[in-house]
């Protein structure tokens, strides 16, 4: 008993020092998520949809979720989200890895290349969306501007397209372009640090054994990078689910071509349809949690083992 008291005296102050943050995170993250979940099961819909005289705080179970999942617009926005996420993740991983591969053995002016490739990360997504709105101008005719005009000038007219207004289902893929532009440098930095962290003895040993460059990468270097690839995947995955600023800047809200749940949530909030806005947010939270929670648990376990 006495020992226990003494040990509380040692760690107690530590807990006390962290307690303000525990309270803040406890309330602002977990408390408000609970509050959101609660709102999402109430009748707090827009004035127009709520029958006169009904109590906005009455609980109506999962009716808001049922409403969303039976709405073709919401299903479409989920499809958009899937397409956007896949293209964005694949694109950023591809360019990130390619740039890291080009740089990893050391090139002249490496600092310059690195700085330029990474600079979009320092730019606000909304501000870059403003430029991409100009670049992705959908006009392909004689008055084409933006990238379409650039293609025309470079003799690459066949590349001209209507970008995000080209198809109600697949147009969203164009939105992945600015997102890839923004994030590839970050992924490059992660992989580059990974390559450089591999002890050079490993390479030398493989070369002495007569491994070709291809085999060196395939069997020696890439396997070393798998923890980084996992981190990159999680980062890109959760960012793709949360994409909001870029879409608001490029195509704006209420645009059927680029609807995603996060933008729908903003529109619903504007219409004071708080219950459904919260429901959309909860659906996204579940998606993000499915991705992130196993990763966090995995990390926590791994740390315990070391």
């Amino acid at each position: 008993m006495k020992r226990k008291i003494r040990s509380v005296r040692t760690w107690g102050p530590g807990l006390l020092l962290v307690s303000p943050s525990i309270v803040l995170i406890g309330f602002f993250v977990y408390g408000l998520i609970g509050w959101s979940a609660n709102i999402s099961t109430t009748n707090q819909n827009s004035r127009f949809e709520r029958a006169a005289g009904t109590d906005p705080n009455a609980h109506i179970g999962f009716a808001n979720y049922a409403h969303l999942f039976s709405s073709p617009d919401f299903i479409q926005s989920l499809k958009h989200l899937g397409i956007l996420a896949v293209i964005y993740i694949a694109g950023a991983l591809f360019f990130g890895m390619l740039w890291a591969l080009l740089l990893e053995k050391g090139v002249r002016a490496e600092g310059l290349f690195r700085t330029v490739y990474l600079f979009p990360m320092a730019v606000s997504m909304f501000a870059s969306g403003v430029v991409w709105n100009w670049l992705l101008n959908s006009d392909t005719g004689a008055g084409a501007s933006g990238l379409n005009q650039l293609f025309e000038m470079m003799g690459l007219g066949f590349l001209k397209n209507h970008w995000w207004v080209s198809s109600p289902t697949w147009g969203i893929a164009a939105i992945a372009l600015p997102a890839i532009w923004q994030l590839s440098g970050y992924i490059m930095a992660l992989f580059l640090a990974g390559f450089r962290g591999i002890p050079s003895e490993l390479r030398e040993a493989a070369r002495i054994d007569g491994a070709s460059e291809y085999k060196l990468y395939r069997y020696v270097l890439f396997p070393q990078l798998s923890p980084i690839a996992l981190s990159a995947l999680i980062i890109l995955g959760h960012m793709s689910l949360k994409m909001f600023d870029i879409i608001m800047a490029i195509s704006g809200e209420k645009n059927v071509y680029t609807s995603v749940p996060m933008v729908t949530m903003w529109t619903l909030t504007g219409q004071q349809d708080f219950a459904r806005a919260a429901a959309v947010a909860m659906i996204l939270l579940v998606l993000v949690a499915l991705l992130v929670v196993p990763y966090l648990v995995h990390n926590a376990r791994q740390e315990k083992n070391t």
Partner: protein
Amino acid sequence: MTTDVIPAPAPSELHRKVVKTPRAKVARGVKYALLIFFLLVVLIPAYVLIVTSFKSFGEALSPNRWALPHGLSLEGWSAAWTELSPALGRTLLIAIPGAAISSMLGAMNGFVLSRWRFPGANVIFTLMLFGMFIPYQAVMVPLLEFLPMTGLQPGVPQLLAVHVVYGIPICTLIFRNYYQTIIPKELIESGKVDGAGLIRTFRSLVLPLSVPGFVVTMIWQFTSIWNDYLFAVFLSSKDNGPVILGLANLAGSQIVPYPEVFAGALLVTAPTLLVYIVLGRWFVGGLMAGAVKS
């Protein structure tokens, strides 16, 4: 974080004797060609922004949108400045104290969670980290209801509070990783044996070693608060919120005056870009820490 975040290539790689076969020379040429090609592609949006911002309103509508401006017109810049400058001060008032307060909280948490642990510290840490990944929309509707109840005014005070709170997880993560690498466990333990209390240890031993950690978290938080659009658009308006909403307002007009909007976008981007160029190494440090594993 005391050395370069991305290490240089191993000397053995740099000075490896590669036989200069014609094939190797071609490979080298292709490598540099690709590097330069991607460099130019990445810079396209920057070119468009800068070039268009110096055109007159009329010239921006001339058929060749990619051409260099005939002369340097400051029409767009002066219009953007008039429109956005009042919000720049407000944005600094949110971003600087916001970054400082969450960094301080992060340092305290990071120290305790790495070197002065209590039972359950790991669980608390993982629960905190989750707060960094959530889509903030999941807390937004209740926030809209709760924040007015706190008596905080809409605009700067509310946004400052929100950014401080949601900045805690990343700052905690960065400091925890940092202290784990620079402060030996034994040092703290021997201090404990000598009867050094938590506060004294933190203040006289840990804080003096924390400057690099603070630089990284300050830059990270400043950049993300400055660039935030989500909290800004939900919780404030153009007249009491950060500069990004002023830009959104310019970009949202019926006929977009591109020189003005692009000059505005450059104005909004300038502070974070300046931080990136001047303190790039530390900026990358934050990015790496954001990947959870140190």
